[in-house]
């Protein structure tokens, strides 16, 4: 399926793409014990807290249903709401800019900063600006952007990339953070310990001068109210308030799906987001402003960058409901073990696995829809009820369709499946193939498991080990048994099956026909 006239996020800019196949990227993380300890501790802590924060709300499921429907309403009439938002922001003295993709957005922001004559900007944590690689673009234009969220600062000073939506430095522990501060922060106190309170105090001292002197700030937005033109940023540390309030010029970059239709809708989302995200009744600070507040020069950049391409897929568009709470990351067994970096994109975890491939087109993130066990925990915790497992299955089919469309001749997978069908459709061929599999005993003698298959079969063991084949196949073993015990086993099997059929009306399946294709049974 391709969507004509709906370009995705462009290549060569920003951070939305896998740099290596997911299994390879994950293998590195899986081998890093420190990382797994950090991740396991963090995700289990926040899982328990979120469950408690949600359990406290009697009407949670009603809020969730309303949240999903409000977002669907936004998506259904996104053109109308964007124009309404633009009118409202402009009426209150703000300027609205439209960016089809990352390159346009970066150019707009760079030009706006240049027009102020400033070479330094402070930034509030923003997924959208990471998605488009804004800091790198500004840097190329000679503009220094300082991240002010504590975790983003840790990531920036560590010359690293974020690995979680809410806690981007989740992969670092306190002593690693202390080492980064001592190495990269010229004004870090020399006797700095790894106490979290001391580390936070060091960051406060480091950033305070920058805040008080900053002339230009760049932010994202959690919500934009079409009805009133109001923007909202939800945060904890106060760095958001600093950036949104003190500088003369404020530039906000926002994905076009961040809209809510009416002021009243905040009553739903200001309950859903904090409890899902930081597991609090309310986050410490939320700032809301409409147009040019308190005499500021305010610019709003509306970003597409693959969102309209996502919107065009009826089975995928609900991913745009996402409010970036990150609850799905913390419950995901794959994320908990592989960590955020393995996903390649700024959007990791289950939501990233459905969002990134849609923003870029599935050809550029073909592994991500497969980076899941489809256990469904992500759907259960999603505050806007995105059915991520169903969407993953849908995107898997898009990946296969896309590969088929681009390959002339069968893909290796298709050829393998065809060969298997030929083998399995004939009893003698199947028996021979099973016996031949014993050749595999040459492998995996030491561990009892095969870690690398040879030749083209290697693809199978890239992401999984294979058990070593047994010395005797089941059929051969069966044939060695005395005839009478074969018959007894077969009839008692049938009897219990008939019972099952009577009791629960189960349909008699292929199981009754024999153990292998072709219906071959003990002779």
């Amino acid at each position: 399926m391709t969507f004509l006239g709906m370009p995705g996020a462009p290549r060569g800019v920003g951070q939305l793409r896998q740099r290596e196949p997911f299994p390879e990227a994950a293998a590195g993380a899986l081998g890093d014990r420190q990382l797994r300890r950090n991740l396991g501790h963090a995700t289990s802590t926040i899982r328990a807290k979120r469950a408690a924060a949600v359990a406290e709300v009697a009407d949670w499921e009603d809020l969730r249903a309303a949240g999903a429907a409000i977002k669907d309403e936004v998506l259904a009439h996104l053109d109308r709401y964007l124009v309404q938002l633009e009118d409202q922001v402009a009426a209150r003295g703000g300027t609205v800019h439209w960016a089809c993709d990352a390159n346009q957005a970066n150019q707009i922001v760079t030009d706006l900063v240049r027009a102020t004559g400033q070479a330094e900007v402070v930034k509030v944590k923003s997924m959208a600006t990471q998605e488009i690689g804004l800091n790198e673009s500004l840097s190329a234009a000679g503009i220094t952007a300082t991240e002010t969220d504590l975790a983003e600062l840790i990531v920036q000073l560590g010359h690293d990339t974020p690995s979680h939506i809410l806690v981007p430095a989740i992969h670092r522990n306190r002593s690693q953070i202390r080492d980064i501060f001592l190495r990269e922060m010229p004004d870090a106190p020399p006797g700095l310990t790894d106490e979290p309170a001391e580390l936070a105090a060091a960051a406060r001292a480091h950033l305070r001068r920058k805040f008080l002197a900053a002339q230009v700030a760049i932010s994202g937005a959690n919500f934009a109210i079409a009805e009133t033109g109001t923007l909202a940023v939800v945060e904890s540390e106060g760095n958001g308030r600093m950036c949104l309030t003190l500088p003369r010029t404020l530039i906000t970059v926002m994905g076009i799906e961040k809209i809510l239709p009416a002021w009243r809708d905040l009553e739903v989302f200001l309950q859903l987001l904090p409890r899902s995200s930081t597991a609090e009744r309310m986050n410490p600070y939320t700032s809301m402003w409409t147009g040019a507040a308190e005499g500021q020069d305010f610019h709003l950049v509306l970003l597409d960058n693959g969102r309209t391409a996502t919107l065009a897929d009826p089975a995928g568009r609900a991913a745009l409901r996402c409010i970036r709470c990150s609850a799905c990351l913390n419950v995901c067994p794959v994320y908990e073990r592989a960590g955020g970096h393995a996903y390649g994109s700024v959007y990791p975890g289950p939501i990233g696995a459905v969002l990134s491939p849609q923003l870029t087109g599935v050809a550029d993130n073909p592994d991500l829809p497969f980076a899941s066990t489809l256990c469904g925990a992500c759907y259960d915790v999603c505050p806007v009820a995105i059915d991520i497992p169903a969407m993953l299955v849908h995107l898997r089919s898009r990946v296969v369709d896309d590969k088929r469309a681009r390959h002339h001749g069968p893909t290796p997978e298709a050829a393998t499946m065809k060969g298997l069908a030929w083998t399995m459709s004939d009893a003698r061929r199947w028996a021979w193939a099973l016996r031949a599999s014993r050749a595999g005993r040459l492998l995996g003698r030491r561990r009892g498991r095969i870690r690398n298959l040879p030749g083209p079969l290697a693809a199978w063991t890239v992401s999984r080990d294979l058990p070593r084949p047994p010395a005797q196949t089941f059929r051969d073993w069966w044939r060695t048994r005395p005839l009478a015990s074969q018959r007894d086993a077969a009839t008692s099997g049938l009897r219990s099956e008939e019972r099952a059929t009577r009791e629960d009306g189960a349909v008699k399946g292929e199981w009754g026909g024999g153990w292998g294709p072709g219906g071959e049974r003990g002779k």
Partner: protein
Amino acid sequence: MSREEILRRIRAATADITSPPDIPRRYQPAGSPAGRTDDGLADRFAERAGDYRATVRRCRAADAAQVIADAVTARAARRIGVPQGFPAEWSALLPDPVPDEPPLDVAALDSLDGVVTTCAVAIAETGTIVLDTGPGQGSRAFTLVPDYHVAVVRTGQIVAAVPDAVAALDPARPLTWISGPSATSDIELIRVEGVHGPRTLDIVIVAD
């Protein structure tokens, strides 16, 4: 150019959507009866604000000036910024009040020990206070730059839940929702109070 292109893409992408969804609002709306008596609301607000390690004091109107001054003294603070429109009878006993008139610049705010303000509305369920830069509240920077904030809440300003607060607020004003002192959990998910905003938040609830 880009504007028209994006709008064109959206219209093409959503052409298949014929029936917009109904929005089911079965959740508890503004004005729900839970804990509507003023006393119940104040109790709950005090408890929830305390959960976020704001220090909460309660008093009768007649004692407000003394309780506010006591709070400031307990922090060993002296120079306290007082915004325009802050009730004079509440600031009367402050050791060294600094009027925000004309508005103090950032450097002057940075040199204060703290500030005292009123608020626009307070939410019992979440322990939140909301400032809208109205009389007695100062600018957004006024309650941000100093390291210590005393917020005075009248019991009549406390609403039950988030929907009540949304209904009571004016989106045209700059709004700051505050739930406890600034905090971070960015290091091993351990909560640390006090990063960039005021590290200390005292709340004084004055009975109407």
